């Protein structure tokens, strides 16, 4: 690591200085879909707290309710029992700005890349109020700056179909961040990309997080991705999901690809893998 890179190593994350109430608090939350015989329990008595500035990865076997947690936090889904607090208030009532990105980039094909990125500014207050005045100047600049940061300088006037999958996903990340959300929800955003593109995007994501310090909840199947990006990894059990283990990831930042081949990192991913394999077999037995 060069001296310059060492200087850029982040100060310890804001967890120590966290306010008394965490940004996200799930208090014994259960979610059940359907009723009676056909009822499926997706989440059982899950408790999770996230402080401002946390980067939490949720990993676990498929169908364990990882995405359900994101939908709860974003207010798209109401819990069957228990409480979900975001910024100390019940969901729906909170003034928190949320950005979201899925595996499917869902860019609007009739808008340019820049217009796609600017879309949240047209909808979210307080940006919305100034949309008419600022869309040509300040907002445009803001979108360009963000695009530059993810390596898409000069692509603002292209249309989504002119981009590769990785570039679309970069645009998607920009769209999720343009309105400076307090909370970024990522649902397997890099899942559909090839290995090399995915690793490039990890670096981009880390870079974005280190400059913005947005609180992030990342749902992923990729343990290396979780280890590389997150400050905390929550392992979930098979359906109905619960959080089995919540561990801190202490590797210094900025993390590099070389980290992925160090014994400590390999040990971490192996341990997580064993945990998940364990709950998978338990569920199928």
């Amino acid at each position, binding site marked *: 690591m060069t001296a310059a890179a060492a200087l850029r190593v982040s100060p310890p994350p804001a967890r120590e200085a966290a306010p008394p109430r965490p940004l996200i608090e799930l208090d014994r939350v259960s979610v059940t879909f359907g009723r009676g015989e056909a009822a499926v329990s997706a989440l059982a008595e899950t408790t999770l707290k996230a402080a401002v500035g946390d980067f939490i990865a949720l990993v676990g076997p498929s169908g364990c309710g990882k995405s359900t947690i994101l*939908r709860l936090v*974003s207010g798209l889904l109401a819990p069957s029992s228990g409480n979900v607090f975001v910024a100390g208030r019940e969901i729906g009532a909170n003034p928190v700005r949320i*950005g*979201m990105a899925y595996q499917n980039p*869902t860019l*609007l094909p009739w808008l340019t890349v820049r217009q796609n990125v600017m879309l949240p500014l047209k909808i*979210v207050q307080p940006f919305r109020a100034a949309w008419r005045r600022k869309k040509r100047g300040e907002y445009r600049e803001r979108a360009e700056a963000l695009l530059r940061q993810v390596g898409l300088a000069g692509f603002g006037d292209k249309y989504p179909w002119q981009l590769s999958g990785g570039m679309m996903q970069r645009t998607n990340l920009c769209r*999720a961040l343009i309105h400076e959300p307090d909370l970024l*929800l990522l649902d397997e955003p890099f899942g559909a990309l090839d290995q090399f593109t995915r690793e490039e995007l990890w670096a981009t994501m880390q870079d974005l997080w280190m400059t913005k310090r947005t609180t992030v909840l990342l749902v992923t199947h990729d343990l290396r991705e979780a280890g590389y990006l997150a400050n905390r990894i929550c392992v979930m059990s098979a359906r109905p999901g619960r959080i089995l283990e919540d561990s801190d990831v202490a590797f210094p930042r900025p993390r590099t690809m070389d980290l992925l081949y160090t014994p400590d990192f390999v040990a971490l991913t192996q341990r997580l893998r064993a945990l998940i394999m364990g709950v998978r077999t338990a569920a199928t037995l």
Partner: protein
Amino acid sequence: MDRLLARLRAKAPSTALILGVFVAWELACLGFGISDIVLPRPSQIVATLVDRWPALWPHAYQTLYTTIVGFGWGVLIGVVLGVLIGSSRLAFDTAYPLLVGISSIPKVAVVPIFVLWFGAGTVPAVLTAMIICVFPIVVNVATGIATVEPELEDVMRTLKASKLDILWNVGLPRAAPYFFASLKVAITLAFVGSVVAETVASNRGIGNMMMIASSSFNVPLVFAGLFILAGLGVTLYLIFSAIERRVTGWAHRKTELAVTT
């Protein structure tokens, strides 16, 4: 210049086919000695068209007028209904069977009812044109709006976008290609509707003119009417297809690329 040439070249076979059909028609009539009371030659029809133009154009104007007015109302009603139905699952499930039922009634059958209510003339023609072109517009607009990706809707909802925001920023632009594609169909159907109504109950319009001409066995004039209808129909279709390409080019980029390469 190269693009123009390429486009002309792409159009050449279809143009040749159309001209070929007319030439074959002309030659067949001459060769088999078909009487012009059965099937007049294209050259005769064109001559009649030129000859009788002063008497024909008010009819052509009337037909065009009823078609456009009926189409205009049809678009208005179709878009409003389509947006309403497409924005809500419940409205879609509730209203769709009724719409299918209405659309499956042969539209000729409703003309007598319109005549009963409004008398013969312009109004039944406009109404028939309208009712016949509403359905494809409703279905297309509703489909475009109802098929917004669920992930995109989630993204919008986490941004606390209202239903109206989603409709305005996502639903409507997304439905635009469907809408403009349906306009091409609708304008042709509106034309059918107004001509049918004119044939049954009117004292003006190409449909009415053709009825009178056929009852006096003026077959070239009947065919002249047919040519006018064909000309108007094709022109309207081309206009709306040009509008479609201009407005919703993003949805057609693949075919466009195919033409230029």
